[in-house]
């Protein structure tokens, strides 16, 4: 700018750096507020809400065909067919087993300490319930790579399990997965008999009401269900919050 030209007072004001900086700071505050407001809405919007429930529900096991509660006589000892119920959420099937010896007499399932090789920890299995303490339940999703029935199912005592040495007296009634050969022992908290799995099946804690001869699923112990980080999240809640249906899809070939 020419030194001799008398400057307009307005021009001087424009170049006053402190005033310019003040305006800049005010714009930053206002823009930050707007961006912050948008940011809160956006962040809260794009984080999906958790699907699931907050606590284990207490669900009466009912027969899917009759709608009546399942009684002890409805559950057959050493039934080789696939008997399942969903718990605690939709799409999470569980075996319902009544354990017996080779001559189909009820066997009491004791509560034991089950070790989890993947974590090195142990958990206390719930043990059998019912008049003979022989009814147990566990997740039917293999803890190795998530195979579901009929690939994984119960082999009754004495039957031979393909691809393993379990047959005759060495098979006391095991759950075996035909995908990759993992075998679980229902008599000992669905602990691992043979790999490749590194985790036992998650056990369902059942309650037996002797006056009405009914069963309830009340909670779970052991590892989390395969593919989930939390047993209570990641799937939609069941349609009923008082019962879950037990269905029999027949004996796998």
């Amino acid at each position: 700018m020419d030194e001799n030209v008398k400057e307009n007072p307005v021009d001087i004001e424009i170049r006053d750096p402190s005033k310019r900086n003040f305006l800049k700071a005010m714009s930053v505050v206002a823009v930050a507020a707007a961006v912050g407001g948008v940011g809160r809405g956006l962040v809260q919007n794009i984080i999906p809400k958790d699907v699931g429930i907050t606590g284990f529900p207490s669900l009466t096991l009912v027969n899917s065909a009759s709608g009546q509660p399942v009684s002890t006589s409805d559950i057959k000892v050493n039934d080789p067919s696939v008997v399942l119920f969903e718990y605690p959420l939709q799409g999470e099937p569980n075996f319902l087993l009544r354990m017996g010896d080779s001559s189909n007499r009820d066997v009491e399932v004791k509560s034991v300490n089950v070790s989890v090789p993947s974590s090195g920890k142990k958990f206390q299995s719930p043990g059998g319930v019912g008049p003979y303490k022989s009814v147990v339940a566990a997740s039917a999703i293999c803890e190795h790579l998530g195979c579901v029935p009929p690939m994984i199912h119960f082999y009754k005592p004495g039957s031979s399990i393909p691809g393993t040495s379990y047959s005759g007296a060495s098979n006391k009634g095991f759950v075996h997965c035909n995908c990759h050969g993992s075998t679980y022992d229902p008599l000992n908290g669905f602990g691992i008999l043979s790999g490749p799995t590194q985790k036992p099946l998650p056990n369902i804690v059942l309650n037996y009401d002797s006056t009405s001869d009914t069963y309830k699923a009340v909670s779970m112990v052991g590892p989390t269900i395969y593919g989930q980080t939390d047993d209570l999240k990641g799937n939609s809640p069941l349609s009923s919050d008082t019962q879950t249906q037990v269905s029999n899809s027949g004996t796998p070939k």
Partner: protein
Amino acid sequence: MTEKNDPVFVKMMNDPQPIPRRVPDYMRKKGGIWYWTGALVTIAFLYEALTGLVILFYYQPANAYGSTTNFLNSTPFGSVILTTHLYGAYAMIVLLYAHLLRNLFVGAFKKPRMTQWFTGILLLLLTIGVGFFGYSMSGDVLSADATDVGRGIAQGAPLIGGYIERIFFGDGTALSLFQRMLGWHIVLTALIGVLFMVHFIIAEFNTIMPKITKKEFKAPLIDHEKPDYKPWYPYNILYMVELTFFMFFMILLIPSVLTLISNVPALFSPLPQVSPSSPLASIVPPYPPWFLLFVYKAMDFNMVSVIGTFWGTVLFGGAPLIYLLLLPILDRGSSLKLVERPLTVSLGIVGLIYMMGLSIWGALTPGVIIPDWEVLLFFLIPAVVVFLLVYSVTGWIKRGRLKHPHPERIFINFTFLGLSSFGLGMLLSAFLTSRAMMYEIPLVLLAMAASISFISLFIILNEKPEIVEEESPRMMRSRYYVAYSGGFAMSSVAIIYVISGIPDNSLTNGALYGIGLAILFLIAGAIVKIYRRTQFGE
């Protein structure tokens, strides 16, 4: 080097120009907004793309209505995003028409901007297509009606109708329908993005259409970049930021306020209507989106029921489109003066009256069949009146019997006068036949609009040429701008404090949050404006 007659694409490739070009100061002054109608459309488009991408995380074609209402009611701030996505689209369409009409009347389609005009018309088509699919995706009763009408039109195309219907609407299952609509909504949007870049680069290549002065009323009108033009950064970019803030303010404010008001008419409701399977669906009038109401009303004409809806659409939707495409050939003279282009002016005004008239007609009498003689009167009367008026006025001006500094104001006034008188006549006849309360308020409003346009016509006709004075930049005293900007910034801190406490659990709270956000953008825009005025003298 390029030859003078090479197509614009050849010139662009072989003789590239700097982008973006520097622009003259008057484009950022008061009234300069008319140079930025395209920028406003682009800002609305960006808003749509951003909010649309968020909605994409949640939209389920297998559960269209369910996922829409779920997003609206149960997803945090879903209602703000969904309602403003709708109104951002409305803003984009309204501004697109403003952009189109402005360029039609100032003659911006003339040499050298013909290619620009054609790509613009294609962009209009694409935008209406995206709007149609987007509107139909919610799965509510209005979207089901709109889809049915769209399918019927597509099916009616000779020979390939079935294929067109299946390409756009799927195999007939609901899942396939919504999957296709989602796909087309995004594919056409991507095409808009690509074609917009072409449109924009051609526009930059051809330079802005400069302010028309008395001596240069002739095409080709090119802006010769003068050395005193200020650079883009920071002058123009800050202006763009200001426009963006003000646009976001409008887009956030209107649907949020409408959400708080109950009983907003279905046409302008920011919320989806009931599901088509609901028993309440029968009381919702079968409206298409408002920007297609004019074609929709034409489907009610008796003659269209004879020729079929496909040919009806070709006639009533295609004719204006073909006219717009042919405009650079029809109005090929080099004059940019309105008085020397009475045909373009008359057709522009008549077209606008037809479109708005048909839309109002469609809103008042959805689905009522109109006999041919009424249709004939509707098309004949405005055409005769407008052509007579425009040709008389231009004749008077040419022969010197009427001297007027702004003849375009007379023509704009004709449009409003014609429109309000047309609406008044229609409502009056409806009122006399049924005397319903619902007609009274629009009747009074339209009567007011008609009388205002009538009075302003006389005011305009008596306008004298004004003496243009060189505007000196209005400066704000420093203590005022310190006080203003400080006060504004403090209130935005207060607002962000208040709205960050708003929970995300209901439509009402979402709407309040939206209003808060709108005010934050308004304040940010205002501070940028103060900054530009005090620091740049703009």
